[in-house]
């Protein structure tokens, strides 16, 4: 596997923001400011236009920034005296639906590896002085994905997010971005007929998040076993660090604890 030259570096972790100061982060197309005041935290964000921007930058003391003039500012009151916060990337709070650039068939009794990109959220926690507890101040998507509907019809189904990246058969085709995690899904077609892959739903809420030594975010690998178009597929969480991620370190745990084997609808046809 060939690594990209401009792999995203880490922007998450624990930070101290003294009172009366503003820290700024740039994570891809997102610029975020956090200001610490007496009894208050202020968080403001601004999203740029370049969705493929890979820049990651942290400016601990940012001056001449008036957060109150920004439309997106969020204010959180607190009585805690701690000035420490923790930034943690998280996977999305809904399933993510991905499509290939062109639909393709998975032959009967064959397996293919499919690489899916999922958007990342950023959670900001306020740490107590003794680090014994953390209180979530704010959580938001680094780049808000589009809503999409996953279901056989418009009456029954589930609201999901649409992955901006197409699902790929080759990892090198998937751009590495600081606001995206990669999942390697092994699609195993055990039915007697070819499986037409037009749309695929990934239950990312059940997956933890990792980062490798190149700064690339990954989830657990999953194996999706498809028996027939009308039946539910089995999604098996491999519960081990992603195979292609070298020296992967867990960044965040899964949002929802589920069984190792989840039975759900994973594939569906496009609406016509």
């Amino acid at each position: 596997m060939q690594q990209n030259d401009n792999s995203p570096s880490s922007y998450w972790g624990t930070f101290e923001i003294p009172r009366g100061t503003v820290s700024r982060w740039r994570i891809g197309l997102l610029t975020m400011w956090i200001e610490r005041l007496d009894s208050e935290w202020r968080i403001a964000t601004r999203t740029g236009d370049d969705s493929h921007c890979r820049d990651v930058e942290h400016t601990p003391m940012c001056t001449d920034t008036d957060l109150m003039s920004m439309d997106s500012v969020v204010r959180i009151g607190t009585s805690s005296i701690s000035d420490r916060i923790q930034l943690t990337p998280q996977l999305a709070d809904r399933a993510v639906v991905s499509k290939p650039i062109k639909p393709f068939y998975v032959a009967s009794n064959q397996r293919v590896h499919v690489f899916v990109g999922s958007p990342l959220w950023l959670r900001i926690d306020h740490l107590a002085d003794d680090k014994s507890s953390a209180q979530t101040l704010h959580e938001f998507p680094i780049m808000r994905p589009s809503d999409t509907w996953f279901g056989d019809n418009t009456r029954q189904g589930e609201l999901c997010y649409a992955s901006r990246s197409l699902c790929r058969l080759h990892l090198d085709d998937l751009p590495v971005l600081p606001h995206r995690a990669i999942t390697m899904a092994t699609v195993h077609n055990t039915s007697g007929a070819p499986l037409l892959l037009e749309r695929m739903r990934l239950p990312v809420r059940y997956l933890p998040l990792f980062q490798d030594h190149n700064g690339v975010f990954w989830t657990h690998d999953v194996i999706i076993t498809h028996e027939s178009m009308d039946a539910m597929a089995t999604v098996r969480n491999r519960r081990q660090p992603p195979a292609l991620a070298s020296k992967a370190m867990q960044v965040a745990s899964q949002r929802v604890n589920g069984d190792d084997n989840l039975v759900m609808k994973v594939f569906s046809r496009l609406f016509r």
Partner: protein
Amino acid sequence: MSDLWNDIRVYLDDEQVRAIVRAALIMIVGVILSRLVSRRLRLGLLQAQQSMIARKLLSTTLLIVFFAWAISTLGLNIGVVLGAAGVLTVALGFAAQTSVSNLISGAFLMAEGPFAIGDVIRVGDVTGEVLSIDALSIKLRTFDNLMVRVPNETMLKANIINLSHFPIRRYDMQIGVAYDSDIEQVRQALEQVALDNPLCLTDPAPTLIFLAYGDSALQLQFSVWAARETFLDMRTSMHLEVKRAFDRQGIQIPFPQRTIHVLPTGDASSALGQGDIRSP
């Protein structure tokens, strides 16, 4: 004092007085039971409104049963009472036709369940949130905060549009573009706006439909989908963003136009000439 007690004993020895006391006790028990049923009974399988109406029916039935028991305890012929009630019912029935129709319509509506409390529905030209489903009518709150009472009979006969029944909704944007517009450029501009709007669902995909060669513009329909919770936000934001995109790309949304041909007639030809005047 002992004379008083003797007088009370004499009264209570009287059979009629005992019957009245028994009837009163029966009525008191009946009222207490009826109130208990009305306030405390939990019917978990029914919706909130259905449960309330069922409790009211049960408590009323209990009252009627205890009343009949009390009447019979007093020695009155319940048949005579019922007969009189029957005549009264016929008379009342004629007077209460509409109410009874509303009552029965309400029962049918509850059984069918085309909407629930909290749904947004449209009945005729009234759109609002369902506040309550009562025995005779439903109450709606319109979006300008007015309370509208719609009789159940009207509801049963009317077309009811439930705007919040399904989880996603389609919005049909009616767009007119100038005749000299490049339709393919318009399509790409609209699709990009939909793609950039996170509230606009990617599936079902937005669709562009050509409607007509209008008087002043090419009439198009751009259909987009959104979750019902974010439908209004999507609708507004799409219109704003379409206008911005059209302005950036020089795509015109024309206003109604008329072309006037001025033709020369005789002596007027030298004064007026010939030409086209376009009026806004």
